[in-house]
């Protein structure tokens, strides 16, 4: 086993710290929020989101600065990269974190979450883990970053203590995801055993020198690849490892779902690209058939599952599975162009998915219901703004020009055809057409279906007795800047049909949510009309990673 000469006497320099400055700022903001939580009185806890937001914006500014003037080298003895691919991923993750923070105060208040400080701290630490994973230049950091983000997200998924579905989501995510992490770690250990290195560049050199020329893939390396593929496919929720996705996405607080559906995908896919497309690129013949099959299964399975869903939140969860399939197409193609397409698709997915989940979040009631398809009937008349945002985001997810969703799909399928994966492009286009059905169905419901006057309570309602109106009014008036004036509707026992009124709740949408929705909407449309800048950035990022 040859270790880099400096393993036993490496000392970090100022340069090392400068190269991870965005991560350090996010960590600092997280710890600051945790401390500020003690100092700020309970009323003003909405300000904690602002503290976190300032940290995220500062980190994004620094990231942009590093894009322009950074040296793009690795830091800490080749552990973590600061190349443009890392910075690109950081920016998308920070965008998701910023929108997640903007969505949170109103939603957190409405759902009765009390531990605000821990909530925002964990959200920021999850973002930190995502950034670490996306910047990893060593298998160790891939795993450490993954664990940081996963552990934070397990807790955040279970954050609504009063809602059993949230607890269930946290537990399911924890057990299944830990299991997948074990697969990933085992795969990394075997890969280390086969190649003698954990640094991605050293693994690349080893397989390029030994395995690739002879075509003799050692069984140990193959086993390692297989186990790592299982771990990664679980994290990006690819079929057949998708079973956890709908339950966790539906049960978790929607602000967290919006953030993690994007952030985890970015982190996991960039890490997947680093490990498979770049480091193990020379032995692509060994792993691409496996990921080819997974990509096909994911595109078909994700879309078929999504078609059958009645709950829009659950539909979006399966849509995230389907989108993972399109991203896997880019990974399987494996060219530099495909890597750029993957990054474009990730950025596109971030904007449109955050917007779509943001609208669902704004409509969700305090009992966690109100997201079934019937609830969207005639929404355009009641909530013109929300309906418009959701319509644009769903059109983007369906891949209709001139939205960013079209740019992403076009880039991926074009790269697949150029890279000689015509069959994947064809399957992708066909399943996208299938996908249009369930996206457009929601738009149809919002704009062309009359709302039913009084929908009978769904049989599965297990809503805890809502607090009396006076208590909730007191709660909302005492939240300071947090403008949540939601007249909660007492969902009483089902035996009394007269009292069952589950009509829509005219709760006010918090200004931060509007701001976040506006940002997502502008990004979705602007990047769709003028995708040149995004394509340019993604191409530069891809060039920094895959030559």
């Amino acid at each position, binding site marked *: 086993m040859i270790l*880099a000469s400096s393993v036993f006497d*490496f000392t970090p320099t100022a340069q090392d710290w400068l190269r991870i400055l965005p991560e350090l700022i996010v960590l600092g903001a997280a710890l600051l929020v945790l401390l500020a939580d003690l100092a700020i009185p309970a009323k003003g806890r909405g300000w904690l989101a602002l503290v976190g937001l300032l940290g995220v914006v500062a980190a994004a500014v620094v990231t942009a600065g590093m894009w322009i003037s950074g040296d793009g080298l690795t830091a800490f*003895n080749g552990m973590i990269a600061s190349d443009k691919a890392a910075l690109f991923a950081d920016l998308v993750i920070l965008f998701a974190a910023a929108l997640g923070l903007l969505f949170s105060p109103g939603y957190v208040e409405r759902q009765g979450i009390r531990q605000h400080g821990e909530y925002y701290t964990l959200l920021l630490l999850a973002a930190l883990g995502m950034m670490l994973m996306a910047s990893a230049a060593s298998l160790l950091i891939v795993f450490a970053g993954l664990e940081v983000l996963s552990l934070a997200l397990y807790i955040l998924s279970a954050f609504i203590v009063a809602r059993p579905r949230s607890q269930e989501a946290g537990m399911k995510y924890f057990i299944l995801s830990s299991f997948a992490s074990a697969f990933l770690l085992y795969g990394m250990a075997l890969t280390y055993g086969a190649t003698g290195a954990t640094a991605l560049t050293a693994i690349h050199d080893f397989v390029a020198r030994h395995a690739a020329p002879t075509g003799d893939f050692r069984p140990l390396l193959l*086993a390692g690849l297989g186990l790592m593929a299982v771990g990664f496919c679980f994290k990006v929720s690819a079929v057949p490892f998708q079973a956890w996705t709908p339950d966790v996405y539906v049960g978790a607080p929607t602000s967290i779902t919006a953030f993690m559906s994007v952030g985890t995908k970015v982190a996991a896919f960039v890490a997947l690209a680093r490990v498979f497309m770049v480091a193990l690129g020379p032995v692509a013949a060994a792993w691409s058939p496996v990921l080819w099959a997974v990509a096909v299964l994911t595109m078909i399975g994700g879309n078929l599952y999504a078609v059958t869903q009645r709950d829009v939140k659950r539909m979006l969860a399966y849509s995230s599975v389907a989108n993972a399939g399109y991203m896997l197409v880019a990974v399987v193609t494996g060219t530099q162009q495909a890597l750029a397409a993957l990054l474009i698709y990730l950025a596109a997915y971030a904007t449109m998915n955050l917007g779509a989940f943001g609208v669902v979040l704004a409509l969700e009631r305090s009992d966690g219901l109100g997201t079934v398809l019937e609830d969207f009937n005639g929404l355009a008349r009641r909530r013109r703004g929300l309906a418009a945002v959701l319509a644009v985001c769903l059109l983007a997810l369906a891949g209709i020009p001139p939205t960013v969703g079209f740019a992403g799909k076009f880039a991926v399928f074009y790269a697949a055809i150029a890279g000689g994966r015509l069959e994947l492009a064809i399957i992708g286009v066909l399943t996208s057409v299938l996908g249009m059905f369930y996206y457009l169905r929601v738009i149809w419901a919002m704009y062309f279906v009359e709302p039913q006057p009084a929908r009978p309570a769904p049989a599965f309602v297990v809503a805890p007795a809502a607090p009396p109106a006076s208590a909730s009014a007191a709660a909302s008036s005492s939240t300071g800047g947090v403008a949540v004036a939601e007249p909660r509707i007492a969902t009483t026992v089902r035996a009394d049909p007269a009292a069952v009124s589950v009509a829509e709740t005219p709760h006010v949408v918090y200004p931060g949510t509007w701001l976040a929705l506006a940002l997502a909407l502008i990004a979705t449309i602007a990047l769709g009309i003028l995708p040149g800048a995004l394509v340019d950035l993604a191409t530069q990022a891809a060039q920094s990673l895959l030559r």
Partner: protein
Amino acid sequence: MTAQQLAFFVLAFVAVASALGVILFRNAVYSMLSLIVNLLSLALFFLSLQAIFVATIQVLIYAGAVMVLFLFVVTMLAPEADTNVSGSDRLRWQWVATAGLAVILAGGLILAVANGAVAQDAKAAGPNSLAAQVTKVGNVQAFGLALFHGFSFPFEVTSVLLVIAVMGAVVLSRRFSGRERE
């Protein structure tokens, strides 16, 4: 068969048998005990690879501290000595699928070992190799130097992980009384 090979096979048998015991015993305390046996046999594996420090840590932390914690929790959760897992398996067909996949995996791994899976390059010992460093400064020192120099960054990231774990324990176990909010 050399003494080392003999030791390996004995240890391997114990490790696999105790690992099976962990998942097959219906009594949780028995599972715990066979997990201890499993961890101890892993420690002996490390010892046979002359990784003295890792073997010591394995015994101290896993077989010692962590398992004591496990046993405490198990016995606390089941004070009436009723630690048996009861009820029938609702997904019996999974046994068949698992067995089939396990055979395939085991076959692949046996093939890997039989083919001499580790390339010679990976084991080559240069002037900067771990082996050279161990002979130069000693086992524990080499480990410590690598941990706090070359691998200091993952080490620091782990500390973030521990912060999150502590916060998770606080968040998920804390219960609010009615009026604590304001």
